[in-house]
């Protein structure tokens, strides 16, 4: 009796341990993403040195005095540059996704709700944009506008725009075919009301879920653009550009390329896991 109760408790304990391990695992990507955001926000307080103007002996190794992660070829503290380098990645990836979500979402909403020829023409335009490789679309935008943080954001947003336009269009078209939309039209509401008040609230949630999973892609695109020298202008710190700068040093100071590359990868992984979790919740019917 006592034994079996004990076993039950033990079994319960194991189960709850398993459960809490599962919860911890699920929370991990959110925790990592939060740490990235915090580190970027607090970079001025966390960074031990000025990431741009700092001057020490160049190419110091990791764990040198005062330079935990060493210094780069120009004698700048690598840790400080990594911390500040998070900022453009976050600004560009989050900003670009927000822009793409807003613009692509609005576009798809109009296209899907309007239907008919308008829909057809609007979607062919997106097809044309889609036929460019996304990174090429971004490079073209940057070639036309010149490199700057805002332009990179814009370029990455343009490259993500078709994703949101298409998804919003598909969702909106699905909603527009439902009777509540017809009921609103029958009541004499304007198409604008139909789009914003009836259709939009019903497509917002899946779009937001999609946005979360696209942040990772945006971060990688931003890093790739920086790597190509199309992003933030040196000497401003940027993770993608640090990989480029560090690449030729791979055999003599591998951390110079690997650390920023690792940060990019970890951030992209974390947000894409976050996005997956949200998508799972949405699929399981997270309706109100």
């Amino acid at each position, binding site marked *: 009796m006592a034994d079996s109760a004990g076993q039950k408790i033990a079994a319960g304990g194991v189960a709850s341990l398993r459960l809490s391990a599962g919860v911890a695992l699920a929370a991990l990507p959110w925790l990592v993403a939060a740490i990235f955001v915090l580190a970027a926000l607090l970079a001025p307080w966390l960074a031990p040195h000025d990431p741009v103007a700092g001057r020490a002996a160049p190419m110091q190794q990791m764990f040198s005095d005062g330079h935990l992660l060493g210094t780069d070829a120009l004698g700048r503290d690598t840790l400080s540059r990594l911390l500040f380098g998070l900022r453009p990645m976050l600004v560009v990836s989050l900003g670009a996704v927000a822009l793409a979500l807003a613009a692509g979402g609005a576009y798809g909403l109009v296209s899907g709700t309007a239907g008919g020829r308008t829909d057809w023409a609007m979607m062919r335009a997106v097809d044309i944009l889609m036929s460019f490789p996304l990174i090429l679309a971004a490079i073209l935008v940057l070639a036309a506008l010149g490199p700057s943080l805002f332009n990179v954001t814009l370029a990455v947003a343009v490259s993500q725009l078709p994703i949101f336009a298409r998804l919003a269009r598909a969702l909106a078209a699905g909603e527009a075919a439902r*009777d*509540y939309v017809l*009921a609103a*039209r029958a009541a*004499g509401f*304007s198409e604008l009301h139909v789009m914003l008040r*009836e259709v939009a609230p*019903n497509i917002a949630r899946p779009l937001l879920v999609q946005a979360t999973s696209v942040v990772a892609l945006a971060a990688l695109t931003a890093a790739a653009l920086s790597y190509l020298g199309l992003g933030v202008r040196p000497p401003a710190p940027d993770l993608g550009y640090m990989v480029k700068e560090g690449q030729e040093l791979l055999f003599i100071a591998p951390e110079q390329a690997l650390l920023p590359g690792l940060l990019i990868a970890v951030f992209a992984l974390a947000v894409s896991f976050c996005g997956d979790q949200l998508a799972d919740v949405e699929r399981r019917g997270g309706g*109100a």
Partner: protein
Amino acid sequence: MSAPLLTLDGLSVRYRVRHGFGHREIAALRPTSLDVRRGETLAVVGESGSGKTTLGRAMLRLVEPTEGRILHEGTDLTTLSVRRMRRLRPRFQMVFQDPYGSLNPRHRVGTILADVLGHVGVPRVERGERAAALLADVGLDRDTLDRFPSAFSGGQRQRIAIARALAAGPELVVADEPISALDVSIQAQIVNLLVELKRERGLTLVFISHDLDMVAAIADRIAVMYFGEVVELGDAATLAAAPAHPYTAMLLASQPRPDVAAARATIAAAAEAPAADLPSQLDPPLGCPFRSRCPRALERCAAEPPVLTSTGRGGLAACHNPVPAAENHPKRGAVRA
């Protein structure tokens, strides 16, 4: 009865569909002329695919008619600008078949009603009370306002949908199969509610259904549709008692009967009937579209499409060989036996 509320004159709806390498037009609604009389309950009856839903939507210009006119108080609604049509819309409302799809899941019931009330000019401060009153009219209490549609059963939702239709202050309500998605046990409640509200508010009701027996009990007139056109139109009691069109007769015969023998007989009759395929919309037959299923088909039916002509019983039917008045009861009886 007074002047018609709506006069449909040769109203038709055709869709372009992709067919092979090109496009074909299919006629969802063949040219139809029909009055909707002020204050009446007009039932539109037919099988699924008969065009009854299209007719209901086309008469409100919720689908754009391809041809024909919709006359309302001397104006042709089909010629109105989108903006002017929109202004008229609150006068014509719809209740839909699926109460799960017809209410926006992201809005509270109160919001759904208040939006419509606001749209027809009810001041903001009055909307809450008016919405509560509407809910009371459809038999729901005030708590309903703060909840989302997902909190309600199908019957309750349909009541909310009716309240929403009433919120616009309509003259005409088109109810498109409003009970067919509901539990049998509550179908009667919703029908009664609609009939009652119609009577209390002096509405005109277009009631679209596949259940000829049921509508015969509530409608003033019945229009029977087959393959996109009205094949018989007449006073409800007469039409149900003495159908002139063989299709109407068949619909009456195929209604579910409460006794097993009748059901068996119905099934047997259906099996004996000539190949009961519906004609293809893509390849419409010459002559009468019903002739492939018609026990009374003549050679003439294959060559010449029948038009609506007087039945001599106060109604109209499109048939070259209508069911004689005298034959009706025995035939119906025969099926039953």
